[in-house]
Structures are given as structure tokens and as C-alpha cells.
């Protein structure tokens, strides 16, 4: 399987470990990631707030490149996904208006959650798991942008999603029942109003802990960074990327460079892997 790949700025910077785990996971799953050669800013940071046209055009430029390749375009970052999806939707609805009359691609902009939760891929992941993360209680955390607004993201179940839960179950871990799965992580306020960010993150982390979770799992780089960095001292709930966990369950190892990327000690995963039993014949 070949996919076009749009990392966006986060995965090249603050969330480089996400990019790393994703690449390794895709390698396990025989997914070829073809990074767009000359991708640019998706427009999520400031362009779409300040200048609608600029915000759209930035994303559209990237889409044009993807169109040249023709594979589905995988976007791991929720904000990038939302912007690219918005541009894609605008183009599909009225290509003429945007002076791109030929835009009617057969390929889709896909978010990592829908990729990994597709039945066929879940089956592949299940088969590939060598060390099921049995007993690891995880709070699946979606945040906002990969799902909302549903008119843009085309999410089917934007209030009660279950893609992460499906993935978590496939790698043998246990998703907990909790209700803050799509709450705002306050990513957009984290610099300007850390006081608000701390309150919102404390809420999320407390809810996850009350549900018995030992860690959170997300697929959004902003959520990951924000929930780890803004949680009250001593809470100690690490936030994993879905790709990070899946890769660990498949390879049975958790590289220390991944571990070091966390602001909250992710020891729960290394300890589990140290004791988890390999599934006979599970590894490829």
C-alpha cells in the first residue's frame, strides 16, 4: 500500500517522535509513505484566522502536489488534516471558484485514525502484534480537530468516536470508559493563557485517572504536547501516540529515544513490555 504523506510542521519539529513511530509502524504494515517533496504550511497556525484566502490557498498548494502523485494523502496531525480537508472540500464543491476546474481527485485526504481503524488494517495490526499490551489501561483521547467540525472532517461519529478504541483493542490493551475523549485540550490557548490550559488539562487528566487509565493515547501532536506539558505536577499520566503504542506492540520494544521524547515518564509501557509475554507465532 502506498500513501502520500504530509507530515506538517509538528511532525518535523516538536512531534518528531510521532513521525518516527509512524514511519516504523508503516514499515511493519507494508505501507509505503511517499512524503510530498515540496509541502508547505497547512495554514492552521495563523493564516486561516487572519486571511481566509491565504489559509485556503496554502492548503490547496499542498493538495495540488498530492494530486500529482495520486495516492491517498495521509495526514497525521489533526490541525493539518482539518485544514487540508477544508480545502479539499471547498475544491470539490466548487473547483471553478478556486480556479482549479480540473480538481476532482479519486484519492482522499485521510487522517491517521481512519487509516489505522479500517478493518483491513486492524486485522493486519492484530496479526502483526508480537507483544500484546495486555492489561494496559488506556484513555483514548481524540481532542477536537480530527473530528470537528463534522461538515469539514466528514467524521461519522464526531461526538462519540471509537477509532482509537478499536486500535487499542487490536493491540491487546484495554480502553477505559470515560467521557472527556473529545474535550478541548486548550492547545490554542496554551501559550497565551496557560492558566486556562492548566485547568482544562487538569480536568482531562483527572477524568482519565478516575476511569483507571494508566496513560492516554492520542493521534494529535498538539494534544500530546499540551496534555503532557500542562498537567499538574505529580499526576504522571503519559500521553502516547497511537502509532507509538502500535509499533511497540508489534516490535515488542520501546526505544529509549521515544521514551526520552516524553515530558511525563512513560515507564508504564517499558515496564509492561519487560513483562509482557510474546504471543506464539504472532510475530511475522
Amino acid at each position, binding site marked *: 500500500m502506498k500513501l502520500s504523506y504530509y507530515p506538517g510542521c509538528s511532525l518535523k519539529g516538536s512531534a518528531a517522535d510521532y513521525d518516527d513511530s509512524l514511519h516504523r509502524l508503516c514499515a511493519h504494515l507494508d505501507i509505503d509513505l511517499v512524503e510530498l517533496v515540496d509541502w508547505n504550511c497547512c495554514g492552521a497556525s495563523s493564516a486561516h484566522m487572519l486571511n481566509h484566502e491565504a489559509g485556503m490557498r496554502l492548503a490547496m498548494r499542498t493538495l495540488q502536489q498530492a494530486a500529482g502523485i495520486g495516492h491517498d494523502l495521509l495526514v497525521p496531525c489533526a490541525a493539518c488534516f482539518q485544514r487540508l480537508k477544508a480545502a479539499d472540500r471547498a475544491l470539490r464543491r466548487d473547483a471553478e471558484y478556486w480556479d482549479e476546474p480540473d480538481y476532482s481527485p479519486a484519492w482522499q485526504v485521510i487522517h491517521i485514525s481512519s487509516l489505522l481503524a479500517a478493518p483491513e488494517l486492524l486485522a493486519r495490526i492484530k496479526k502483526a502484534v508480537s507483544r500484546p499490551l495486555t492489561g494496559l489501561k488506556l484513555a483514548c483521547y481524540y481532542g477536537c480537530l480530527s473530528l470537528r467540525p463534522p461538515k469539514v472532517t466528514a467524521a461519522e461519529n464526531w*461526538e462519540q468516536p471509537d477509532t482509537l*478504541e478499536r486500535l487499542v483493542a487490536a493491540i491487546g490493551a484495554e480502553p477505559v470508559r470515560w467521557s472527556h475523549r473529545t474535550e478541548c485540550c486548550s492547545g490554542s490557548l496554551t501559550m497565551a493563557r496557560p492558566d486556562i490550559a492548566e485547568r482544562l488539562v487538569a480536568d482531562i487528566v483527572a477524568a482519565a485517572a478516575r476511569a*483507571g487509565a494508566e496513560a492516554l493515547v492520542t493521534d494529535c501532536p498538539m494534544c500530546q504536547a499540551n496534555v503532557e506539558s500542562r498537567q499538574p505536577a505529580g499526576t504522571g499520566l503519559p500521553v502516547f501516540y497511537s502509532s507509538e503504542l502500535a509499533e511497540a506492540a508489534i516490535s515488542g520494544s520501546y526505544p529509549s529515544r521515544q521514551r526520552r521524547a516524553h515530558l511525563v515518564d512513560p515507564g508504564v509501557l517499558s515496564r509492561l513490555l519487560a513483562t509482557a509475554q510474546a504471543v506464539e507465532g504472532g510475530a511475522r
Partner: protein
Amino acid sequence: MTSALQSSGQPPTGAVLVVGGGISGMQSALDLANAGIKVYLVERSPAIGGRMAQLDKTFPTNDCAMCIVSPKLVEVGRHANIELLTHSELLALDGEAGNFQARVVSHSRYIDIDRCTGCGLCELACPVSHQPYFPESAESPQSAQPAEPAEQPASAPASPAGREGRGGKGGRRGGGEKRLIRGNTPPRASGHEHWHFTVAADACGACGICHRACLQQAVRWQKGERADIDQESCTGCGACWVACPEKFSAIRVSAATEMEKGVGAAVQARARLLRREFAEARGLGCIRCGLCVVTCARVMGVGALRLVEEGVEALVDRCQVCGACVSVCPVDFLSLEQVGSRPARPLHNAFNEGLNLRRPVNILYPQAVPRVPTIDPLSCVRLNSGACGTCATVCGTGAIHYRAEGRERQIRVGAVVFSPGLELFDARRRGEFGYGISANVVTSIEFERLLSASGPTAGAVTRPGDGRHPRKIAWIQCVGSRDESCDRAYCSSVCCMYAVKEAVIAREHDAAIEPTIFFIDMRSFGKNFDSYVARATEQGVRLVRAMVSRVFEDPLSGDLELRYLDANGQRQREVFEMVVLSVGIQVPPAARALADTLHIATDRYGFVRTDPYQPLTTSRPGIFVSGAVKGPKDIPETVGEASAAAEAASSGLAAVRGSLATSTTLPPERPLASGEDLRIGVFICHCGSNIASVVDVAAVTEYARSLPGVVYAEHPLYTCSQDSQERIRALIGEHRLNRVVAAACSPRTHEPLFMSTLQQSGLNKFFFDMANIRDQCSWVHADSPEEATAKAKRLTRMAVANAAAGEALHEQEFAVDSRLLVIGGGIAGMTAALAAARQGFVVYLVERESELGGRLRAASRGNDGRDMAGYLQGLRQEIEADSRIRLFLGCEVVAQSGFVGAFESEIAMPSGATRTIHHGAVLLATGADENRPPLHGLGELATVVSQTDFGNLLEEASPPLPERPQVVVLQCAGSRDPDHLPYCSRVCCNQAVRNGLRFLERYPQGRLDILYRDMRCYGLAELDYRRARQAGINFIRFDPAVNPPQITTSADGIEVLIVDPSVGQPVRLLGDLLVLSTGMRPRQNEELASMLRVPCAADGFFLEAHAKLRPVDLPGEGLFMAGTVHAPKSAPESIVQARAAVARATTLLSRKSLTMSAIVSRVDPTNCAVCLTCVRACPYGVPVINDEHTAEINPALCQGCGICVAECPAKAISLGRYDDRNIEAKIASFGSH
């Protein structure tokens, strides 16, 4: 409208097809059938009753829905002119108005509806509780059921515990995973009375398999020899029997109760015995009774279970997950997750909204009519794999036929009433509330079932998540209503009231409950609704005007945190223990599809389109519409509309009325032989759990048997159900009963039903008495069951004594005058007169004014913008052209006498002369007035006008307003105000919105502000409200107690100061015009009321006979009403009522004769002292002193109230069954113990 019916050459068919057996369809059917039209009532589900049957209580009277609907269910079920086609669908309709050909399919129930007694044994015997996984070949033909994908992940929302984790997953694909199920204690033998197993020597194949299967070493066997069972050590588990290869079948069973019927029946019989024997051993460990293994192998034909040393061994992949083993286990040792590998698919009870389970064979609900089960072809094991068949073996009447097929038939009808009903919004679509994920978030209809005595919790309000009694309960309004995001922009009309009612009733069930209702606008717009809401708040129901944004479930406690913005714009969090989502009403997809098939035009939501002034007529001539499929509405409106649709449907069939009807013939009455011994039959009703949960009905029955004269007593679950009535009939014959007593609910609702059963059994109907052990006993003494039981015994005793003292009474028949008097010539009266004339009756239409048209003459435009004057002119011309209508303009009805079927009225003519007319019924349509309170200078200043004035102003050719007018509209001006009109006038909000939109049409530069308390744009009118907001009309909410507007008016203009809560700031509005929505006030109705001898309510409007089910009947026989004389309403609503009232009148006027009550006062002239006491005491003015100088009471006028009987000092007056003899018998009986 009727021209289409009359155009075709052949005479129309005197029959009507009614689609849908809910309250709407039932009412239409009854009104049609009682007017001599043959009715085919087609209902999709296996029983009639519809949504109303699911409700607990009804607003605003808190009547029990089932109690008031069940007499209707029974009447429909028994009616000779109604052919009930349940479990049936209308497939196609050919032909045209007057002569339709309907193709109807009746799906197979697999039960012979004529043979079935509704005993329910089949349901009790069926062991299947879950949708089994049948082999592919068997399952594929019925793949209609969307089976859950087997690969459903253990996602957090769907399945909390992650069911895959259990028991390891290694062998899943191996096909042969064996799982051992152990208990907390080692298996022990199952007691003494067990089945006996022996080996038939001639059949034994000497294979030794039984020997190896036996865990007790009770089977002796040597290689090459035949087996033999040692009865001393045999525990009767049946392991040998199950193991014996089929080709030998050498093991024989004996001493097995019910085995002659079949293994399934025998298993159930033994399970019942063991359940009693091991009552304390539940859940501890296996008792090795072997029933699970026997059931799996010999009943289900699966063979996935085996007894082993440690417990039970399951072949989890062979298991079909049907739940039979679990349901027969007497000690609850097995659980379904243990025995099967595939996810269990519970069979949810749809009538209880999935709150509990049902069997593949089941009766829809306890009071169902017909009370006949259906077998679900998707889940029944017999119909899919060919195994089981237990239900047929236990059926005492041989009513079950697995090969029965549905049948299609052609039905000829003259018209169709389309009333397929409603479904509820799928609350999952508002994911933020967590319905379907958080167990303690329920929908309002589920909550109704939780409140219902016959619901899954027997009326206990408990949380589905953990069974705990919740204290704080929140209702969230407008879930799937007024919601553009879900394409449900309309208002569902009923949710505000049902939520308030549910909150009130919840507190009645459990006073610890603290209900809170989160709402946008409180739309309590109906008659007496506002006072109901006010009472609710006094009783502790908290109302919070806020839309809840999200519900968070606490994973540990299951409690729910709600977030919302309060009135001050502050974010609030509040924790509740249970959340009820007030889900909206929508058109079911099947109804939409059927509407398409029938070529009826619908709107984007699927609601049937009608012209507001032809509110019952669909786009296809001959098909009429009623109920929620035309737009959301409550029960009384639906009932009114159903009667109106019946009238509309029969309008073109008047000429053939009675042509297809069957007349009921009662068996001749059996005269009692002189000196015939008393033979009393007593029926003590459970009333579901209404009575039985408090009163020990078995004890009362036992007691009743000991009473003198009683030869038979029993305690049915519902004495009023159709099958019970059949049973009573049979018992009257069988035991030669000559008196019948029912200790049940209120004689007011149920006595006629029992009496007619007596009549059908050839017994005089007055040989019956009823003790009300529900309303007067179990309901009021719920906390004292012992005393309640004692009281129930005493009440029963008294009823028995009274029945013993009863004597045969006979009703008189009298002829019916088929003419109708319509009082009032407004839109309701005119519509009614025309409709009644079309039905073939002569109509006297009396109007006080010199012109027809009523209050609408003052309106320039109708609700849909039509020219009102033109519309009224059309009606006038039609009336004048109709020879059957005698018009009395400028006249008044000044006196009335007579009685139903034979009224006599005096009409004062404009000349001053009076004229006497005779008629069989009265239709009151005298209307209401616009309220014009002297508020803010209304009537004095040109700058202050009423909403009606404003509407007319907008139509004036030369606009009297400046080019950029600024108008402020004040809603509830003199309404919902204790100093003026205390009630809501229902129409003003819609009128304000319509006028506002019209204003912007005429003055695009104008500005309009509407100051309102609650915008009550109910139903589809919400779409106009939305349009008004989008058009730029500014809505400012006020609460007279919080931010009353300060209004200053002068001849030059107006000024309004108000704090606008949406911005939290005071605003100042300057305007050219102040428009007051002043509402409607009743006319001076007292004289009319006393003339007609019917009551007016305190607010001055006439009272209906029953707020829910008789909305156009006045509480006097033969008297009906329509329009605003009943309560404020719109013109289209008045039209519906007018036609409904004509339908009700037609049920009388179409008859040749009526029977008069037998319970009337009679004067014994020999004892009369002519003291005039009775003449003065009678509230109806009936007694007169005749020529022979004694008091005389006209039996046709006497209401049977008994006041004269009690007052007469000489005891010269007697009253049928309420004689001193009866009362004394009761009193004596009261004190006899």
C-alpha cells in the same frame, strides 16, 4: 372536496380503510364504525394501541394512559363493524375515491388468532432469550436483521468490559475450543425427584458411550455387552441419554413430568421444580441437573455442552448463543459469555424500549388487543434450524402453526384514513449527551416505561446502569426538535408537557427525586397546561432555561455531569444521577414509504401536506390524514383530528352508510327463575401490578369464595382485557352465574365493558357490581399492604352484597331525530353545518349576528396568508346554496329542553317571535372574543394596537406607517397574568411571527422587536419562527418577575426600556407603534351553560367530557362543541374540531334509535306528599307536579344523579340499582365483620 367521490359512475363502497392502530386510527375506526361504516383497521405491529399504550400517565390530568385507552382497545377489538388486521400492511391502493381497491398483507404470526386464548404459556415455555447464530444457509433468507458484525471491537463505548479478554482468545479460529465452566463449589447432585433413565436392551448397540459419559459410575457396561443403569447411584442428569448415539437411541426416560409433550416442556417443568428446591443455592455452583446439556442437545439440536467432573464443558464455537441453557438453569450457574464465543445478541423488548428482554414468541404487551402472541421469524429456533418447537407442545389449544404463511387480500373501500403514527428521534444522533453509551442516560419514552406499572421495573424508577434509585434527575428538552443540525428544525409540540408530567409522576413514585428540566421555551400552550406547569413547580419540579451542551459520565459512579450556561451567562456544572432526553417526534421511514406508495404529498420531514383550511385532505382524493404524521401533536388534538378524518372519510359515503355494517344481536336475556339461588362470580383484578403490588389479590380471592352466594372467584392479571372478558363469558355459562362482581378499578371507565359482557352472556347487565380496589384502595394505601388487603376484602364483600341485592332493569329505546342544531356561525359553526349537511342531516344553523363569519370577519388574512373575506364568502355561499341547512341569522337559542336524540329548542327571531325546532344533537360553536385589556393605552392611543389590528393595518392599501417604521410587539399582554387572563391563548406567538414576517415584506426597511416570555411556536410553526429570526426580527425575552419591560406610550410614539438577557444589557427601544398580543377571552357563557346544563371551567371556556379522549364532547349526552368556545385555538384547529364534532354527532344522528339509561328516578305516587322537595332539589329541573298532583320525573331527562332520592322526605323516589335496598345491603355488609 366531495365532488371526486361522486363523480365516478358506480356507487361508493360503504367501507373505510384506516391505516394505523394507534389512538388516532382507533378513534377514526370507532367513529366510522359507530356511524354505520364498515372499517378495516390495518396495523403493522401485532397489536393496536400505538404509542399511547406505552405511556404511563397523561398530561394535564395525570390519567393513566393504559387505563383510559384500554376500554378503547377493547371496544375496537369487539366492534362488529371493525375488522382488525394486525401484523398487517397496506401494500398498494388502486382505484379512486369512492371505489378503492386496497392490497393488504397480513404477515404470519405462526399463531392461529382464533384459537389462541392469550394464556401466554408459549412465552413462558420458550427458552430462547438471544438472537441465535444459525448456520449460514438457515440464516441467509432472513438476512433482513442487521446482525452485529462479529468483529465488533471491544471499544470503550460499545462494551465496557471488553468481552474479548475473557477466557483467552487463542483457540478462536481452531473451531474446537473447549471451555470449562466451574462453580464456586464442586458440582452436587440435584435432589430426589429426578428423571429415571433405563436402557432398552433390544436397542442398545453395546458401544459403551453412555458408560463413559456417566460421571456417577451408574452405567454398567463391559465391552461387547449391553449397558445397564444402576438406579441407586443414578442422579438423573441425563448424560447417558444425551450421549447415546442417535442410531441406537437406547436410553429411555421415565418419571419425567410433561415429557409426553416434549423434551422442551419437560425441561421447563423440571427447572421450575428445581428452582424452588434450590432457591438458596443460586449462583453458587452446578447442581448437575443436566438440564442445560439436555436442552442444548435435545431441544436446540446443538450439542455444545457436556457434563464433566468439574462442572460443564462448552464447545464455545459450536454454541449458537441462543441463551436456552442459561434460561433453563435453575441455579443461575451458567452465563452466556461463558458458553459461547460469539457476542451475545439480546432480544430486546421493543414495547419496553429495549429495557428488558423478550422471547421469540411473545405477546406485545399485557393488555394487547388482540392478546395473541407472534413468533419472530428471525430469532425462533424452530423456524430457522428446525429444532425446538417447545411452544407448540405446551399450547393447550393447538394454535401454533410453524408453517403458517402470511396472506394477501384485496379489500374494497370507499376512502382511506392515513394515520400511521410517529416514531421517536434517535437520541444517538446527539452524541454529546452520550445516549447508548452512558447507561443512565435514557430517552423520555424509556422513562415512561420505567414509570409504568406494567413496564420492565414494575413502576420503580431505577437507573438502567445499576438499578439504583436516582435522586437528582435531569430532563434535557429539544433533543431532535428545533434542531437544524439534525434536520429536525420543527418543534415536537409535546415534549415540554410530557417532561413536566414525567417529573411530577417521578416524584409521585419516589418523593426523594429532585427533577430538573432544562428547556429553551416552556411550550405549555394547551388548555390548562400553564396551570399544570405552575403546579409542578410548586411540587418541586425545577425548571432551568438553558440548553445543556454536554453530558459527562463518571466512569465509577455512573453519575452524569451536565454543563450549561445559566440565565446570567455563567457556565455551570451540575451532577445528576440520571438524565432523560426529551426526544422529538418524527415520521417513521415506513410511513414515508407508504405515503409515497399511496401518492400522498409529504414535506421534507415526511409530514403529510395539507391545506390549512382543508386540514384533513391529502393530495390524493379519498385519502384523509390524521395524527402525528401530519405534524407533531398531543393526544387530544390527535383524537379530535381522528374524529375529523373519520367525518371527512365518510362524507362521501353517507348514501351507503350501513350497507356493509353488521348489527350486533345480543342473545335473549335469561330471566331468573323465581327463587333461583344466588350464584355469584367474583373477579379480583391485579391491574398489572397496580393492585397486586399492594393488595394480596390471592387472599382477597380466597376470601371472596367464602362469601355467601359466591360460587366462583379468580384473580386475572387484567380483568378488563379482551381475553378476560371472553373468559368471564365462558364462566357465566359454565357456572350458571347469575351475578358478577369485579373488584378492579373505576366503574366510571370500566363498568360498561363488564356490563356488555354480561349482556353477551344473556344476563341482565345490572346483575353486576364493581368494587374499586385500585383508585380507592391500592393507590391510596400503597404503604400499608396488609390494611389495604383488608380493605379490598371489605370493598369486595360490599360489592357482592350489592350485587346480591341487584334486580334486573331494562333500558328503553327511543327514536332519534336526525337533525342537528349548530349554535354559532363562525368558522367552526359554518364548517360543521356544511359537514353535517354533507353527511345527509338537516342542520339548523343559528347565528346571533346578522351575518355569518364570526370573529374571522375582523381578520383580513388567514394563517397561510389567504384572503379571509373571500374564504368566508365561499363558505357563506355554500351554506346558502345547501337546502339541508336552515339558516337563522340574527337569532338566538333561548331555551332548550329534551334529551339526546330528541331535543327541543326555542329560537328567538329578530322579529321578537320565537320558533321551536326539534333536533337530535347540539353542536356548540359560539366562539370567543379578542381580549382588549386597557393596557398601555390600547383603545385610546393610535400608537397602540392589538395584534389583529396590526395584521389588518399591514393589509391596508396605503401604508399608514412611515417608510421606516419601528414597531415593538409585546407578547402576553394581559395573558398568563393573574390580573387579566391567567391562561395562554396559544395563537398569539404564531400570529406575532406571521405578522412580523408580513411587516418585513411590506416594510423591508422597518424594524420589529418582539418582547416575549416563551415563544410558543409549536409544531411546524417553529419553522416560521426560525424564518422570522433569520429575516431580522429581534426577539427579546422577558420575565415579568425579573426584567419586565418599562413601556411609555404617547400619541407621538412609544419607548420601551428592557434588560435584554441575550446581551445582559438594558436596551431602549423607540417605536412608532406598540402592538399588543392580547389573546382570546371567552364570551359570557354562563347562561348558555345553564341552558345546556353543562359546566364551564373557572376560566369561562366550556369543559370537555374528557380532556384527553373526548375533546369535542360536552359532558352531556348529545352535546358537542367546536372552536374557540372550548379554548383558544387557530382557525385550522377550529375546522378540525368542527368536523370532529360532526363525526361524534353522526354516531348518534345516523342511528334510528337510542337506548335510554335504566337508572332513572321513579316516583311512587302513593307515597308522594307533593312537598316539592324534589322539584327544588333537582339540578336539571326534571321533576314536575302532574295533573294527578304527584311529582313526575321524565325518565328520558333524568340524569340518575340520585339527589331527589336522597332528599325525598317520604322516601317516595327510587333509583334503579341505587335503592335503599342496595345501599342498606352494602352498609350491612360493611359492618358485618
